[in-house]
């Protein structure tokens, strides 16, 4: 085994995992507190990427664009919440799935209308588009390191908000006992709108950071949405901690598994069949993992207390 390669793949795994966490955090909060399945979360991610691309184009600076993008996506989230989603909280999941699926179609076509069918690209500033030698002989893209850093910072910040602030207390209370916060006389509408906006901003952050490496495309939200749903389901719906751990696990398994699976398979089956089986198995690996976790723990790894029962 090549240890340097393994190390690099672990870094890659963390980078993917933290990106997923940014998306999963918002989604799991909305899910946990409002009991709302929001498939359009991926569209907010896409908005983040498109806004950032446009702002970068206007201002010429990725950093300024990033700072402008966050409030912009927050606003989009708030508008979507007030116009469409607010009326769906009391509905069953099926209605929510259908309506937010409608939102996906709408956002995709609107994007195609405004920005055209060809994707955009986000040019990075010089200092972010180079590589750093993390250990001699292993250069690693600076921007990916930046994603890891931002991911950890946001995770720490969220941890602080959820465990130390009043908003966090309400969020925790909401995830385990939805009726209670109403009883406390909190303005629930405002709380929900704020939480939704926060989730949207996090999705936007993920989008603007994914944009420069994964390219800005129509429909970019859907493929990552599925991964995100897998993350929050494995983690336990409503649990930020669960989302964090599941995101890292998925990131690591996807990346490290993908790169070493052919070698591992060769230990068990003939080389030829290993070569054909490996891509198929690596494609379904995360689904296998999810089915396995749910078969053993039907409420995910860290179900918040009192949810679902």
């Amino acid at each position, binding site marked *: 085994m090549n240890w340097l390669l393994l190390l690099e793949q672990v870094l890659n795994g963390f980078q993917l995992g933290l990106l997923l966490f940014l998306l999963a955090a918002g989604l799991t909060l909305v899910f946990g507190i409002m009991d709302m399945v929001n498939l359009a979360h991926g569209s907010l991610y896409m908005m983040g990427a498109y806004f950032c691309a446009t702002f970068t184009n206007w201002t010429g600076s990725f950093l300024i664009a990033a700072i402008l993008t966050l409030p912009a996506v927050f606003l989009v989230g708030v508008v979507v919440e007030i116009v469409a989603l607010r009326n769906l909280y009391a509905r069953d999941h099926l*209605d929510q*799935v259908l309506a937010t699926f409608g*939102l996906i179609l709408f956002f995709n076509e609107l994007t195609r209308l405004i920005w055209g069918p060809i994707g955009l690209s986000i040019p990075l500033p010089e200092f972010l588009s180079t590589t750093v030698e993390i250990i001699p002989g292993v250069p690693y893209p600076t921007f990916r390191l930046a994603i890891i850093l931002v991911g950890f910072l946001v995770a720490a910040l969220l941890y602080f908000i959820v465990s130390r602030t009043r908003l966090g207390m309400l969020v925790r209370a909401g995830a385990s006992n939805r009726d209670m916060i109403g009883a406390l006389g909190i303005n629930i509408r405002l709380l929900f709108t704020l939480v939704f906006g926060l989730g949207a901003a996090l999705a936007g952050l993920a989008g603007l950071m994914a944009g420069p490496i994964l390219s800005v495309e129509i429909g970019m939200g859907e493929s990552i949405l599925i991964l995100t749903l897998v993350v929050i389901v494995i983690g336990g*719906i409503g649990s930020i901690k669960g989302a964090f751990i599941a995101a890292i696990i998925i990131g690591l398994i996807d990346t490290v598994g993908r790169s070493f699976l052919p070698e591992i398979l060769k230990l068990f089956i003939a080389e030829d069949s290993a070569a054909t089986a490996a891509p198929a198995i690596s494609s379904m690996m995360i689904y296998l993992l999810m089915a396995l976790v749910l*078969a053993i723990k039907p409420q995910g790894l860290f179900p918040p207390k009192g949810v679902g029962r």
Partner: protein
Amino acid sequence: MTLSIRFFINAALLIILALVPFLTDWAGDSFYTGLVSRILILAIAALSLNLLIGYGGMVSFGHAAYIGVGAYVVGIGAFHAFEDGIDWMLNGYFQLFTTLAVSAVIALIIGAISLRTRGVYFIMITMAFSQMLYFTAVGVETYGADDGLTIYSRSDMMGLIDLNDEKSLYYLIFVSLLAVLYLMHRLVGSQFGNVIRGTKSNEARMRAIGYSPYKYRLTAFVIAGIIAGYAGFLMANLSDFVSPDMMHWTRSGDLIIMIVLGGIANLFGPLYGAVVFLMLGELLSSIPLTIGGLSVGEYWQLIFGPLLIFIVLYARNGIDSFLPGKGRRT
């Protein structure tokens, strides 16, 4: 059953459907026979899914997988008959039996594991299993991988019915639809259906009065899987083609949309949903209107998306709410 307005509307729809091949003959436009055939097949699949979702509250997000399984049985049979000259694999009864058996076994395995979970976890785990089947199909190069398989001979029904004849195939599909509708009607009103519906309504109370719902739900899951597999058998014979794309989770999503669109827990709902969903796409995409150089038809999803939201928000029983008369499970 009382003869309500709704009864006449449903009957009128069935009569129109029964006449479709003649109407299109008369209009000299056989395209619609094929299109309506496809709609009816998807309606059969949606009906079976509605047993789970509408009556049983089990939101399976992987139902298209069984359509794919059924279609692949036909495709693989035709492939070996064509490539290797194994003629018996073209036998329609053999294919049909295999389709039903394989979809039953797969549904049994998936259901046995998935039904341990509830709510969104159930939605996600059923999707996960269907994606595994999807990627398996993509990975099997012998059977065309993602390019799929072209079916060179339709199932050979030994002279009982000729599936190559458009009208015969249409009527097979139509009669199948009637049979599934009647089966659902009986099932839902039976003791078994009572348990399924009761569990959706109040699972805790079901346990308290002495039921263990698991085995009933699993049975419903398998029944729905078998019917969807049968729909796949028909679909393969209609389109002469199978591909992994038929099993993708978005296809399962389409089935759910049909059900919700048609009005949930309503016998005819999935049929209305399938007709409206598929016709709407066809019609909206050919709107002859251009605004500022952009063809509206090409951006039809810009209209369809908000329409979905509107239906969910203001027409809680889908199309059902627009039809006169009360349609509570006939």
